[in-house]
């Protein structure tokens, strides 16, 4: 029973990592850049929801606040692209990496100014109550996290595979110039992707905040999500989720069965192992650049 308990709580944590990793992968697929601020997006999404719904702030009903926060984050993502990232168009990936790291610092600073640095809890209907399955006690929040995550991943996957816009987004990343010639509005497509990543981050933030307290440094969780994205293979949406689940499940088991000191290392050790033995992730195929 204990194993099952660890597994479920690991899966729920893993889903949050997976959702952040999903954000990385979305942006990577469409713009070939990596958004190192995705974890801070998640933190901001959580705080925006908290600001809208908690009694001491605006006290809106949760089911109004949540969609509102998701839309706000989507708009924020689009605006960030519009005002900042669009100006980097065509510059190296390294520039984008550094820029988004800086952005993360700024977001953390701003969130700290507005909401303070004390951990706060979101008044979420998801956070109430437990469900009993046999001998296993599951938090409602954990179940909600798992369900929402799978639904979101599935719909994003369908979006990229089936819809014209989704395919256009992939094309836009692989060859900007060719995509232009084919009549794809590359810049607008990239803005939309950033919006989508913002919305995904907001969902992750709401779920994460429903499971426990948040503070402005919660975004550092993003680093674990990186591990997840790499393990799953950058560029694959289901891979990102799977990577997140793997990292999430490893953590509680390592904490339970390994000596203290070794348990924190486990996810990163796995990350390095994957980078060495299967560099492009567990779920991805490698090809060679044409010249």
């Amino acid at each position, binding site marked *: 029973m204990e194993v099952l308990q660890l597994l479920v709580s690991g899966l729920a944590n893993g889903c949050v990592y997976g959702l952040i990793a999903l954000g990385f992968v979305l942006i990577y697929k469409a713009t070939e850049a990596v958004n190192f601020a995705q974890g801070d997006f998640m933190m901001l999404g959580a705080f925006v929801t908290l600001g809208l719904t908690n009694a001491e702030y605006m006290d809106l009903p949760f089911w109004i606040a949540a969609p509102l926060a998701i839309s706000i984050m989507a708009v924020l993502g689009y605006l960030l692209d519009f005002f900042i990232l669009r100006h980097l168009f*065509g510059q190296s990936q390294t520039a984008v990496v550094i820029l988004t790291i*800086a952005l993360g*610092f700024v977001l953390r600073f701003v969130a700290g*100014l507005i909401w303070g640095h004390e951990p706060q809890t979101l008044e979420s209907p998801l956070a109430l109550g437990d469900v009993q399955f046999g001998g296993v006690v599951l938090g409602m929040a954990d179940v909600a996290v798992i369900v929402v995550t799978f639904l979101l991943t599935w719909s994003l996957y369908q979006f990229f595979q089936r819809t014209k816009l989704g395919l256009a987004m992939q094309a836009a990343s692989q*060859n*900007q110039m060719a995509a232009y010639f084919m009549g794809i509005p590359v810049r607008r497509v990239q803005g939309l992707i950033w919006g989508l990543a913002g919305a995904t981050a907001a969902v992750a933030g709401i779920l994460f905040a429903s499971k426990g307290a948040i503070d402005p440094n919660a975004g550092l969780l993003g*680093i674990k999500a990186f591990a997840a994205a790499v393990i799953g293979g950058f560029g694959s949406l289901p891979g990102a989720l799977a990577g997140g689940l793997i990292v999430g499940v490893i953590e509680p088991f390592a904490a339970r069965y390994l000596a203290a000191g070794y348990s*924190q290392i486990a996810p990163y050790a796995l990350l*390095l192992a994957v980078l060495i033995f299967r560099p492009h992730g567990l779920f991805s195929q490698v090809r060679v650049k*044409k010249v």
Partner: protein
Amino acid sequence: MRIHFKTTYEQDIRLFPDLWTACVYGALILLAFALPYLINEFYVGEVTNVLIWAIAGLGLMLLTGQTGQASLGHAAFLAIGCYTNTILIEQGLPFIIAFPLAGVITGVVGAIIAIPALRLHGIYLAIATIALSILADDIIVLLEPWTGGVSGKFPEMISIFGFEIERWTMPTRFYYLVLVVTIICTLFYRNLLRSPLGRAFAAVRDSEVSATAMGVHIARTKATAFGLSCMITGWAGALMGYYAGTFNNETFSIVISITLLMMIVIGGLGSIHGAFFGAVVVAFLPQGLSILKDGLIGGGVAIPGLETGVFGMILILFILFEPMGIYGRWLKIRIWFELFPFARKDMFRRQKSYLKTERLR
């Protein structure tokens, strides 16, 4: 405007292209040596801090600016350099041997760690190095018998043939030590840039396929760059240990790694000047901010994350408006004055380029 009339190839090869430049830098070095007689000991300490950051910046610049590989984990190599130096001295090696050796060991360790990561492209290396920076903290704790774990270590007093150097009681002597290391590292950097290996670094940065076709072994070149970068960073780490006076597993955190990367971007990627300019910003920003804050809202009010937040904003502004960093701005101002009044605005226009995928590699 100065006109260079070149008569021999040597003019493009030697350290300084002309007499004027040689004089300017000669004067700068003289000034650096005279500095302790011009300012008080507190500021000598501050300048020492700038120089140590500049050495670390040179280390990372070699990798990121010259070879085009971003590392978000260089604090780990600062740590390796610092601990190796301290442990070697505790084992009885004299400073004059232990210190260079600490850098070399850091370099070798860096190259070995880098080999698997370097087969991958840009972003993967960045992520692998982030993981490394996080792991460093835990590994230092795990290796407690050597590293002292959470309680940390104190470096012993430096002694070079009986000549003692200590950061707190003799800041001027420590300053001279750091200055000498800075000059040596800068010379190494400059020498690399004018030799085949430096060109191979640039070739790897700009086009891996054609570098290969010209006979450059990509993985070996990248590993060499990583190793050399780590060597210089290791020396900076050892000096940082002396400067701080005590260090433990949290001294060389991931924030330091990221600060280092941001520093060289603000300073100006791909130039020696950039490392120094960036170091000045990093070293003086906290003081500047606290003076500004005290003036605006009164002292005693703590704003957590202020430094990193402001640093982030400065960086974003630089990437957007001056991707060449402070050094790039400096060059433009200089050219503007040299050409006065003939400088035109579009002289410095950036070329538009399109991103093509590197993913299918």
